[in-house]
C-alpha cells in the first residue's frame, strides 16, 4: 500500500428535521450505512433546517439523508436545500429523503433537487447501491 494513496470514504449525514420524534428508521439506516463502510454522522432529533445545513456544510458530507415521517417535508426540505445553496454546498451533495411521502409530492421534491425518495419497505441494499452509484464526483 502506497502512503500517497488517497483515502476517500463516503461521508453521510443522517438527519431528522422538525418535530417528528421517531428516529428508529434513522438509526437503522445509520447502522446499515456504517456497515456498508460509510462514515455516518447522525444529527439527533428535532433539528431545525439551518442546523442540518450547518452540519452538512461543516462535515462536508457527500450524502444528506433526511428522514421525515411527520408530513412536513414540503416546508422543511426546501429550507434545507436553500441553505445548502447559500453555502455553495448544494451542487456536490446527494440529497435523499426517506419516510412517508405521498406519491404526488415525490415529483416536487425531485424537482427541487432531491435525488431520490425512499418509501417504507425499501430494501437497505437498494439505498446503499443508489448512494454508491450516485455519490457526486469531486
Amino acid at each position, binding site marked *: *500500500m*502506497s*502512503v*500517497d*494513496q*488517497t*483515502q*476517500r*470514504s463516503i*461521508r453521510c449525514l443522517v438527519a431528522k428535521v422538525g418535530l417528528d420524534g421517531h428516529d428508529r428508521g434513522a438509526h437503522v439506516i*445509520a*447502522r446499515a*450505512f*456504517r*456497515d*456498508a*463502510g*460509510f*462514515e*455516518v*454522522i*447522525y*444529527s*439527533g432529533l428535532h*433539528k*431545525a433546517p*439551518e*442546523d442540518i445545513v*450547518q*452540519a452538512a*456544510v*461543516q*462535515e*462536508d458530507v457527500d450524502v444528506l439523508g433526511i428522514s421525515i415521517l411527520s408530513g412536513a417535508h414540503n416546508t422543511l426540505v426546501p429550507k434545507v436545500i436553500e441553505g445548502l445553496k447559500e*453555502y*455553495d*454546498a448544494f451542487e456536490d451533495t446527494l440529497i435523499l429523503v426517506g419516510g412517508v411521502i405521498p406519491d404526488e409530492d415525490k415529483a416536487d421534491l425531485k424537482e427541487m433537487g432531491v435525488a431520490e425518495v425512499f418509501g417504507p419497505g425499501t430494501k437497505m441494499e437498494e439505498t446503499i447501491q443508489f448512494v454508491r452509484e450516485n455519490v457526486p464526483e469531486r
Partner: protein
Amino acid sequence: MSADVRGLVDDLLDGHQRALARTITKIENREPGYRDLVSALYEHTGNAEVIGVTGSPGAGKSTLVDKLTETYRDRGHTVGVIAVDPSSPYTGGAVLGDRIRMASNVGDMDVFFRSMSARGNLGGISTATADAVKALDAFGKDKIIVETVGAGQNEIDIVRTADTVAVLVPPGSGDEVQTLKAGILEIGDVFVVNKADLPGSDRTVQELKEMIQLAGDTGSPASGGGHHGPDQHALGDAEAGADDDEDDEAGWTPSVVETVATDATGVDDLIDALAAHREYMSESGRLDEKARTRTAEEIRLLLREDASGLLERELDRRGGIDALVESVRAGETDPYAIADDVVAPIEDCLDERR
C-alpha cells in the same frame, strides 16, 4: 501550486465555511495537492490555543466539550472542534456520534465542529488531525478543541497535538491500581472528574491527587527530581494536591477539577485550570519547546512517509513484495539482504550529492 489549491486557500483565509470544510476533507482523504494546501496555510498558523480532551468512552467528553465551547463563545472567543471517533477495522465504516451532543452550539456558525474517523489508520490519523488543526488555526479560530476516545496509543498521539491536555476520569473508575497503570494518565495536564455529582467522585479526586503527588515525589522529569527529597509528604496526605510556589518553578503539577458537564457546573474552574497551564507553558518557555518538538516530529514524519513511498515504488520495480516474500520462502535470500539491496543505491545517491 495549482489554481484550485490557491483558490481554496484564499477562500479559507477569507472566512468561507465551505472552503474550510473542503480543506479538511482534502487533508483527511490525502487528496492530490493536500500538501501544498497545508504548506500554504502554515504561515497563517500559530495563533490558536489548542486543547486536547480525552478519556474513556462514556466519561462525558462530548457534553463537556459542548459546555466548554459555549462558555468560550460567551466570553467572545471563536471555537473549532475536531472530534475523532473510531472506525470499523472490517468495513472502515463509522458512526461519528459526537455532533449530537453539541446541542448548545447548534446553529452558531462561529463554532466549527468537524467529526473525523480514525479510518483504521495507525499513525496517519494523527497527521491528518494535526493538519486539520492547522486549517482551523489559519481560519482564525481562537480556541481549538481536539476530542478523542482515550483507548490506545493512536489517540494519545492525537491529543499530543494540543498545548494542554485534559483527561476525563469518571468517578469510581477503578481501584488505585488503575491509576498506577501507564498510559493515558501520564499525558494529562489537567484531570477532570466529570459527573462529580455521582457517589464515589470524592474518592476518585483523592486517588488522582495521590497519584499526582506520587509522581512528583518519585522525581518525574516534570517535577525536577530532588526538589522534594528531604520533606516528602506522607502518602495520602490531605494536602497532597495543593501545590506550593516552589513546584511551579520546578515543573507543572497537574490540577484536578470536578465538573458536572450536563449542567455546566465546574466549567469555569476547568477554563481557569486550562488557562493556568497555558500561562505556565508560556512563561516557562515550554510552549516554544513543545512547538519545536512538534515541528521536528512533523519533519521526521513527512520524511518517513516520503521515504517509504520511494521504497514502495522501488519494491514494485523489483517485482513487488509478494515475489520477494516468495524468494525468501524458497530460501534464495532473506529479508535483511533484500533491505540492504534496496537501500544501497539510495545511500549511494545521497553520498554522491553530498
